[in-house]
């Protein structure tokens, strides 16, 4: 026996599988197709999710800290200073431009948190961009470039010019550049509602992949924005990136406990997106479950047939002194081997299908529509899940085989 260094159960299990070659091949094919579907779905959905998240987060911070909302305070009627109070309608107050109190010390506190990767102060407000007769309403975004580009990576989205901001430099979107008819080195006048205006030179033109953002956003230095908005030294928001994007909401809630700010995480502001992701994840789990169930039933049915077909052989093995536990292990091993073998084949088929799909689904610029994530964890977990499914599916047939009465089996 060439494999006699292997335990008895392994030798018999492998020979039984090899003997029923056609049966083994069919069930392996069934498992492989099921596993391929799982691998394909998982990698594709993980890729889609990561792609969505990357797109969403490439243009916004994980958490945006804003000054607290102004609210209407109602005087307490019980307060003797209030006098008679008659409230028919309580109106929400208009939200004036507010600043973050003590923002520099808050930045230091945030940077001390291990979960936080980057903090960028921003001064923003509305303005009118004017070039000759053309004008457009824009949002001024005053930033410290080195810090802010670590959040939105604008330097990677520049289509003309550079992402440098010094002195009177300005970065505008492709749509705004088109509307105003400007290009690199052209001058643009920015005027705020109070009438104050400054002239800037277009240093770079970017494409954020969103028409609205390309039309409205203009980037300038923090100091220039503060000067234009008349908020010298103040900032209107702090943009925060965290180490783990999935933890953004929890971190945002933590920040509000020690700072007097509104903290909006990307999870909260992209709730609809998250609902869609959640629906996809649920559908994926359901598909995986039912495919896994079909695979398990397939393995179980093949092994049940095998037990019936081999009942005499099992009987004689038992008569020769092979224990019930050994017979049990022979069939459990067959299930696990089928599961593992099918998983390996399924991973190969799934990977092939994913690569084919990726090569077919391309953006107009030739880049893949979705970045696929074929990581070791996916494959290892699939192998483990496949083997466990096989093992689980083999339990009933294995118990049946182990319980076979040798005398009855031999007489049969």
């Amino acid at each position, binding site marked *: *026996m060439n494999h*006699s*260094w292997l*335990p*008895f159960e392994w*030798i*018999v299990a492998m*020979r*039984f599988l*090899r*003997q029923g070659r056609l049966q083994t091949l069919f069930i392996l094919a069934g498992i492989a197709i099921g596993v391929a579907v799982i691998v394909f779905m998982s990698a594709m959905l993980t890729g889609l999710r990561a792609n969505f998240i990357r797109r969403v987060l490439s243009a916004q911070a994980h958490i945006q800290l804003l000054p607290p909302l102004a609210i209407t305070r109602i005087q307490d009627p019980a307060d003797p200073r209030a006098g008679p109070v008659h409230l028919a309608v309580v109106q929400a107050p208009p939200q004036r431009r507010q600043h973050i109190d003590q923002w520099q010390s808050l930045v230091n506190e945030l940077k001390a948190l291990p979960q936080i990767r980057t903090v960028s102060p921003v001064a923003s407000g509305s303005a009118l961009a004017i070039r000759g007769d053309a004008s457009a309403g824009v949002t001024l975004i005053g930033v410290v470039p080195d810090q802010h580009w670590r959040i939105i990576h604008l330097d990677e989205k520049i289509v003309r010019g550079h992402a440098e901001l010094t002195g009177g430099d300005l970065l505008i979107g492709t749509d705004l550049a088109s509307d105003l008819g400007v290009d690199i080195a052209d001058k643009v006048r920015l005027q705020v509602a109070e009438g104050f205006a400054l002239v800037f030179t277009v240093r770079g033109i970017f494409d954020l992949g969103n028409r609205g953002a390309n039309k409205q956003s203009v980037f300038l230095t923090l100091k220039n924005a503060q000067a234009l908005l008349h908020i010298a030294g103040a900032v209107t928001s702090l943009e925060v990136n965290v180490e783990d994007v999935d933890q953004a909401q929890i971190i945002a809630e933590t920040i509000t406990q020690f700072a007097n700010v509104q903290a909006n995480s990307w999870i909260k502001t992209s709730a609809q997106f998250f609902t869609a992701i959640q629906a996809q994840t649920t559908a994926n789990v359901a598909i995986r479950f039912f495919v896994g169930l079909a695979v398990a039933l397939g393995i179980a049915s093949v092994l049940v047939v095998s037990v019936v077909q081999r009942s*005499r*052989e099992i*009987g*004689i*093995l*038992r*008569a*020769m*002194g*092979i*224990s*019930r*536990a*050994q017979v049990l292990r022979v069939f459990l091993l067959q299930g696990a081997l089928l599961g593992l073998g099918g998983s390996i084949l399924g991973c190969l088929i799934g990977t092939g299908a994913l690569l084919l799909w990726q090569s077919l689904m391309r953006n107009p610029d030739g880049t893949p529509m979705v970045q696929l994530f074929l990581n070791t964890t996916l494959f290892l977990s699939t192998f483990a899940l496949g083997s466990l499914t096989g093992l689980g599916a083999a339990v009933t047939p294995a118990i049946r085989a182990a319980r076979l*009465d*040798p*005398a009855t089996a*031999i*007489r049969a």
Partner: protein
Amino acid sequence: MPENSVTPAAFEGAVVCLEGVQKIYNAGTPTEAQVLHDISLSLMRGDFTAVMGPSGSGKSTLLHLIGLLDRPSAGSLKIDGVETNGLSHLEITRLRGHRIGFVFQYHYLIQAFTALENVMMPMLGAAGFPNAAMRERARWLIDQVELGPWVNRLANELSGGQQQRVALARALAMNPALLLADEPTGNLDSRSADAIFALLQRFNTAEGTTVLFVTHNAALASRCRSRINVIDGRLTSG
């Protein structure tokens, strides 16, 4: 060695000792059937005993009880001095694996294995045998049943007589004290049957293996050292 060790009473040092053994199927139900009645029997080391009787008389049931494939409904059954009543499934399995060999009318070889592998099977199952020792013992047994050239052939590539010889070699793999042969020649032509019987005799003489040989063949039974008849579940010595 006694002339005929089929005795009604227990015999000290017997390989097989049955006292008052009964076997009742479906006890307590309308289909209750008593197959064996008050069987007492001792077989000593080196005995070669034929068991004869009409079909349905209880021969195979007796053999299954002695082979620990089934349990008696009443009475005592000792194998190599070990009382089997009260033994667990695992203890029964171990006792059967180490002390008893089986040859049936049909060979029941595992078709996925070669002749050599089939013979190695009981040793593999028992574990603890060095690989080389297992292989050597199996090879020796294959040579003894004169199948040396077919040692690496798959079971289904052998003729009926050859398969039965492999089954005999397999039954002797663990060097059992007792060999139970349930009509091993029933499916064979007279030449192959003679060859199998001769092998049984040879192992009985050379190894001292006790053989209990169920057969319908009176000529072969007459060549056994002793003979018992089972009629309607009762034992008579012949």
